C-alpha cells in the first residue's frame, strides 16, 4: 500500500525528469522484449519493469565521472547513467555500434565513457569489483565515487561479505545498493535468506545502512542523496536496501507461473511510474504532459530500435579482436 502522497514536498521539475527517465527505461525494456519475441534479440533479457525507480533514483544521483557496476538486470541502471539508448539496443541486438560492439550483449552491457563499468553475468561478482574500483579511486586521490547495484539474491554469495568487509576496512567511497525485487530467478529470496535482511548484514560490517521503499522515487532519491553525500565526504561505504517488485518473469522467457496472478496484480498497483505520475498530477502537472513524457520516451526508443535493427552484425573477425595483447587467439585452433 503506497503511503498517502498528498502532503509530500518535492521538486516538481526534478520528479518530472525522473518520470521521463523511468519511461525511457521502460520503453527500452519493452523494445528488448519485443526483440526477444521476434527473435531479433537472441540472448537472455532480464527486464527491470516495475523497478525503474531504483535505477532513476539511485543512478540519477551519480555524476558522469562516478562509476557504476551493475547486474544482469542492468538496462535501467545503464540508461540512467547516461548510455545512449541506440547504442544499448545495438548491443542487445548484437550489432555494430553497440556499447560493447555487440560482443557482450545484455548481460555484459557496459559504457566506460559514462562510467558504467559493466553488468555482470555472475551474481555478486560486481561487488568485489566495485570495491576495487573504489580502491583505485582512493589510491589515486580522486573525488568520484562508485555505486554498486545488486539483487537480493546476491547477498547470499561470498563476495557480498568479502566486498563489504573490504570496502569498510579500507574506508572506500562506494555506495552499495541492494535492489530487492523479492525473487532470485524463480525462488522467493526470503525462503533462502536467513536473518533480518540486507541492511542488517551490512551493519554487521559497521556500514551505515538505510532501507527504503524502492518504488517510491522520492524516497529513493532522498535516501541516495543523503548516503552519497556521506560517501563523497570521505565517510567510507554506505548501503541502501531498496524494496521493489519484479513485474515480469525472471527473463523474457519466464512466464513466472510460480506466483499467483493476484500477487502480481496487487503489486502492479504500486509500480513506480504510476506513483510518480500521481505525485506530479497532485502538483498540477497535467495528464497531457505526462502522456507526452511517455510518448517521447517511446518515440526515442522506437527510433533507436529501428536504427539498431538496421545496423549490421559485426564481422566474424571481431571474435579475435580485443582478446589480449600477447599471443594470437588463432594459434593452435582450427
Amino acid at each position: 500500500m503506497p503511503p498517502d502522497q498528498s502532503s509530500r514536498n518535492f521538486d516538481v521539475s526534478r520528479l518530472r525528469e525522473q518520470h521521463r527517465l523511468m519511461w525511457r527505461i521502460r520503453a527500452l525494456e519493452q523494445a528488448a522484449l519485443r526483440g526477444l519475441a521476434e527473435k531479433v534479440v537472441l540472448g537472455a533479457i532480464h527486464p527491470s519493469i516495475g523497478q525503474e525507480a531504483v535505477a532513476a533514483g539511485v543512478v540519477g544521483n551519480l555524476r558522469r565521472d562516478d562509476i557504476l557496476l551493475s547486474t544482469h538486470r542492468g538496462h535501467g541502471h545503464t540508461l540512467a547513467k547516461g548510455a545512449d539508448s541506440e547504442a544499448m539496443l545495438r548491443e542487445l541486438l548484437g550489432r555494430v555500434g553497440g556499447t560493447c560492439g555487440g560482443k557482450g550483449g545484455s548481460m555484459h552491457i557496459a559504457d566506460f565513457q559514462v562510467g558504467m563499468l559493466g553488468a555482470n553475468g555472475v551474481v555478486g561478482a560486481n561487488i568485489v569489483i566495485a570495491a576495487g574500483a573504489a580502491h583505485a579511486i582512493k589510491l589515486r586521490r580522486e573525488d568520484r565515487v562508485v555505486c554498486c547495484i545488486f539483487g537480493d539474491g546476491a547477498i547470499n554469495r561470498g563476495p557480498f561479505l568479502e566486498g563489504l568487509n573490504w570496502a569498510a576496512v579500507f574506508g572506500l567511497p562506494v555506495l552499495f545498493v541492494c535492489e530487492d525485487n523479492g525473487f532470485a530467478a524463480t525462488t522467493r529470496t526470503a525462503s533462502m535468506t536467513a536473518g533480518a535482511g540486507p541492511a542488517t548484514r551490512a551493519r554487521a560490517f559497521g556500514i551505515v545502512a538505510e532501507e527504503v521503499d524502492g518504488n517510491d522515487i522520492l524516497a529513493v532519491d532522498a535516501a541516495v542523496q543523503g548516503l552519497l553525500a556521506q560517501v563523497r565526504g570521505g565517510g567510507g561505504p554506505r548501503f541502501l536496501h531498496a524494496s521493489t517488485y519484479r513485474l515480469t518473469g525472471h527473463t523474457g522467457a519466464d512466464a513466472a507461473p510460480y506466483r499467483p496472478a493476484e500477487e502480481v496484480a496487487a503489486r502492479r498497483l504500486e509500480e513506480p511510474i504510476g506513483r510518480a505520475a500521481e505525485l506530479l498530477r497532485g502538483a498540477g502537472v497535467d495528464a497531457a504532459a505526462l502522456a507526452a513524457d511517455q510518448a517521447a520516451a517511446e518515440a526515442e526508443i522506437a527510433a533507436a530500435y529501428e536504427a539498431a535493427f538496421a545496423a549490421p552484425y559485426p564481422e566474424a573477425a571481431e571474435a579475435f579482436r580485443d582478446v589480449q595483447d600477447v599471443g594470437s587467439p588463432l594459434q593452435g585452433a582450427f
Partner: protein
Amino acid sequence: MARMTYLAAARAALAEEMRRDPLVWAVGEDLGRGGVFGQYAGLVEEFGPERISDAPISEAAILGASVGAALMGTRPVVEMRFSDFALCAVDELVNQAAKARFMFGGQGRVPLVVREPIGMWRSSAAQHSQSLEAWYAHIPGLVVACPATPADNKGLLKSAIRCDDPVVYMEHKNLWPLEGEVPEGEHLVPFGVARRVRAGGDVTIVSWSQQVHVCAEAAEALAGEGIGVDLIDLRTLWPWDRVMVLESAARTGRLLVCHEAVAVAGFGAEIAATVAEHTSAKVRRLGAPRAPVGYAPPVEDAVRVGAAAVAATARSMMGR
C-alpha cells in the same frame, strides 16, 4: 526402449536413482520449480523439498555443503546451473571434494555428482558458454563425464550417482531437446568405455558431447566421398578409453580429435599426445580459438568448430 529427450533421460535417471536409494538427493538453485532448464521438473512433487532442495545463490556452499553431506554418507547430486558458475566453487571441488579421500588416507569417500551444463547456446556470451572439461580431467580424484546422447545421459548419470568418486557431469545445453532411443529401467553406462558412433578404416575421429554430432555430420559427408571415418564418442574423459582410441588410430593411421572447447590445452591435446606417443598415426586437433565466446551471432559462430572444418581437416589428412 523409449523415445525421449536428452533432458528427459537425465530426469528419468535421477528419479530412478532417487527411488532406488533414499540417500540420493539433489540440491541447487530453483530446483523446486524444475531447475533452470526444466531438468528437475516434477521431481519435487514426487520426492519433496528435502530431497529436491532449493538453495540460496551460494555456489561455494552448494558444493562445499555437498562435500560434507557426501562424507556423511549421503549422495548429493549438485546442480551448478551453468558450468561457468561452478567457477565460484572451485576450492570446494578441487581442494576438498577431489582430495578428501586421499588426504584422509581413505577414511572417507565423496560420492558426489556435480552437474555442470556446458557449451555454447545461442548468444549466451562469455560467461555462459564455456566448456572446461579439460580442467577437471587434470585433477586427481575427479571423474569427468560428457554425455552426447539421450541414452548416455541416462546411463552415465545413473553410473555417476552410484559412483563413490566425485563426478563432474557435463551436459551440453544445446542437447537438452535432442531426442533418441533410451533403454528403460536399469541402464548403466560404465565409465571409460567409449562408443563407436560409426566404423570406418581411413580416419579416426574422437569427440564428445555435442561435438560428436558435428563430427557425425562430417563423417556422413566424408562417407559420400569414399572416406571411411571411425567415429568415437569418448563419453567420459576420466577415465577415457585409451584402448579403443589407440586401436583405432593404429589401424587407420590418422587421428583427428575434435572438441568445442578451446584447442590450446584442451583435452584433445591429451588424446593427440597419447596417440602420438603410442602409435605412428598422424594426429590433428580441432578446437576453438583461444578467445572468449562473443554475443553477436557471427562472433559466436566464428569460434564454433563446424562440420565443414572437420571434413576439410579429415580430407587434408587423407592428402585430398
